[in-house]
């Protein structure tokens, strides 16, 4: 039995660390980084695949990837806010508003029985659909730009409320979650909007063959852009600085309020784009698309991916790996044919484990939780 009597780094000032202490240190650093998540994913797949029929198959890989891209985009968006030390609970509700409004713009036909009493009927909408019903690919691009703009405006509203009035992000985004959800349902009286143009549906359903889908391209482009912004621009450095210590960041000249509003705007834009992928793969705009558990998946994936709920730590690679873990977890639980309640219990426990892991990582890296 070994008794540890010295700090794990095992060296005092001026002394060279011993080889074993260096190894321990390296291991601790690894545990605190993205490498741990990558190993966790591989170990989990190896451990579960013998029991989960078809888990290691081309078809399942395509399924997993199809489920991954929209979630990963939303998690990457959430990363900007979490790094800042905030949280965006309104992402799912933003998805509901933007994907429904976009579908209304693009719908080729609308059932008068269903939509006649909705707010836009007779002005923007009619039995012939929305204003971009017959405009083809150009209309689709325009509609997407409008959706993203609406998402950005609503996201900046969140950021403005937090930055300008100093309100807690949890309360602001909880409030806007309810507000945006209500607006989504109100727009169509809870109706789904189908009959969407094929050019639009292709975004979530089309591709270059096999796993190489348009959704994949969109997700990877956004992830690379987000990685560049976080790691190689002053804005990224300001985000981390603000997340580590807000007061120090402000004293150091970080335009804190502007950074904060930008982070919430980016979170909303990424949520909007993720929502477009979810909506198009289901073939309809839905005011309840971002369901009860999407938010749990997003936050859970982010924290597993090493994005600290305390702020100041996290990366796009970690966000992506966290999303992969959550998608693989869901997929495997389905393939194991576990009862629905067990699936939720497992996910709940994983979220607790992720929170504990976050605390452990902070300790390993010298944080002060």
């Amino acid at each position: 039995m070994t008794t540890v009597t010295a700090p794990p780094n095992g060296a005092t000032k001026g002394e060279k660390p011993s080889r074993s202490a260096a190894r321990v240190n390296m291991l601790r650093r690894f545990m605190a980084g993205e490498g741990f998540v990558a190993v966790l994913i591989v170990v989990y797949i190896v451990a579960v695949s013998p029991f989960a029929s078809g888990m290691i198959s081309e078809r399942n890989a395509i399924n997993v990837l199809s489920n991954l891209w929209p979630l990963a985009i939303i998690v990457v968006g959430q990363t900007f806010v979490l790094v800042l030390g905030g949280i965006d609970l309104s992402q799912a509700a933003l998805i509901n508003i933007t994907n429904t409004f976009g579908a209304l713009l693009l719908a080729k036909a609308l059932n008068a029985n269903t939509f006649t009493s909705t707010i836009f009927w007779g002005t923007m909408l009619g039995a012939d659909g929305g204003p971009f019903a017959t405009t083809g690919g150009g209309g689709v691009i325009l509609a997407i730009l409008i959706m993203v703009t609406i998402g950005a405006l609503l996201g900046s509203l969140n950021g403005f409320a937090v930055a300008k009035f100093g309100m807690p992000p949890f309360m602001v985004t909880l409030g806007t979650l309810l507000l945006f959800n209500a607006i989504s349902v109100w727009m169509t009286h809870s109706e789904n909007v189908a009959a969407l143009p094929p050019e639009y549906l292709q975004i979530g359903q089309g591709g270059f063959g096999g796993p190489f889908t348009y959704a994949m391209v969109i997700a990877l482009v956004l992830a690379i852009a987000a990685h560049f912004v976080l790691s190689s621009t002053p804005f990224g450095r300001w985000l981390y600085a603000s997340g580590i210590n807000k007061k120090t960041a402000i004293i150091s000249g970080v335009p804190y309020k502007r950074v904060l509003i930008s982070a919430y705007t980016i979170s909303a834009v990424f949520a909007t784009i993720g929502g477009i992928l979810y909506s198009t793969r289901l073939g309809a705009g839905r005011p309840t698309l971002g369901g009860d558990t999407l938010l749990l998946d997003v936050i859970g994936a982010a924290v597993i991916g090493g994005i600290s709920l305390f702020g100041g730590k996290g990366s796009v690679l970690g966000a992506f790996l966290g999303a992969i873990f959550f998608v693989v977890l869901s997929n495997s639980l389905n393939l194991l044919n576990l009862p629905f309640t067990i699936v939720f219990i497992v996910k709940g426990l994983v979220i607790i484990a992720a929170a504990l892991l976050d605390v452990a990582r902070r300790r390993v890296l010298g944080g002060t939780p």
Partner: protein
Amino acid sequence: MAKYNSLMIGATALVLITALTACGSTGGSTSGSGSGEDTTVDVQSDLTGKTICFGFSGSETEFWAAGIESITTSLEKAGAKVIEQNSNEDPNRQLEQVRDCITQGVDGIVIIPQDGASAVTIVGEANAANIPIGVFNRPPADESGKALVAVADNRDVSKQTNEYLAEVAGKLGRKVQPLIMVGDLSDQNALARRDGFYDVINANPDLFEKPIEVQTNWDAATGQANLEAAVQANPNIDVLFTSSDFLFPQIQAVLEPLGKWQPVGVEGHVIMGGLDGDSRACGLIKDGYVDATGVQDLFFEAESLLKALGAAIAAGETAPDQTLIDPGFALTQANLSEREKDTWGCVIAPPSK
């Protein structure tokens, strides 16, 4: 330390939300009518060695709970291995679950979709994978895919029920104020039930005032809140039709404090009808509070769907395409004694045919 505590509180809250989402909304994956009665129907095929994926969106109402139990137990009795997938009313999750079933190489799929639009997508997935699929009770929004669809003639059942309500209302000798609690109108069934209601309203312009519409979105809390508001604004409601029987407890909660939850023949009685034919509605008709309910023949729908799916699997058909219509009927105060035995909610076990 304070941050640490906040984090743990936050994580605990997230987990509680997760657990409540799992347990509170639509129950678990293995549902039951809770009757203890035999709900199996005759599939008429030997499905030994076959695996059937059964995806449903929830088991919130008695109709769905009984339907889920009937389908699961009937398939198992026929020898099939049943993979149950509960999407908890999330169409995205249902799509992912069906895809995961396809990955496992199932021989057939049965779904109760969240709505008609998502049914179209899921049927398309099954067609692309060459797996026969049956849709129970909620039809796809369009006919672009090939599927076996068992569905009640909701418009006609609703019409029959509301015709009875109109007959009773006509005896009051004055114009009456009707109210309809409509379901989620993205569900074809909800649309058809509302259309059946309006068929009767429009056929009797001298009897009915302009109807009041109460949105429920197939959600009990939403339905109750909206009904409360509607009744406050319009206290003189004479006729109330709910698009689903599962809302009767909410209706009672709203009407009882106003003295309007009264049996037939007692001052203040609101003429009431529903649709589904569940045990609650059956009991309320027996007790005199409800005048009529449209009955979907749950066992007919389950049996006809599973028979057709079993036959398709046996014949190696990968894309059977057939609509199986359940004609349904209205159970009323007038025909209760004759039709009670045909109403699934009154007997739970399949009625003898």
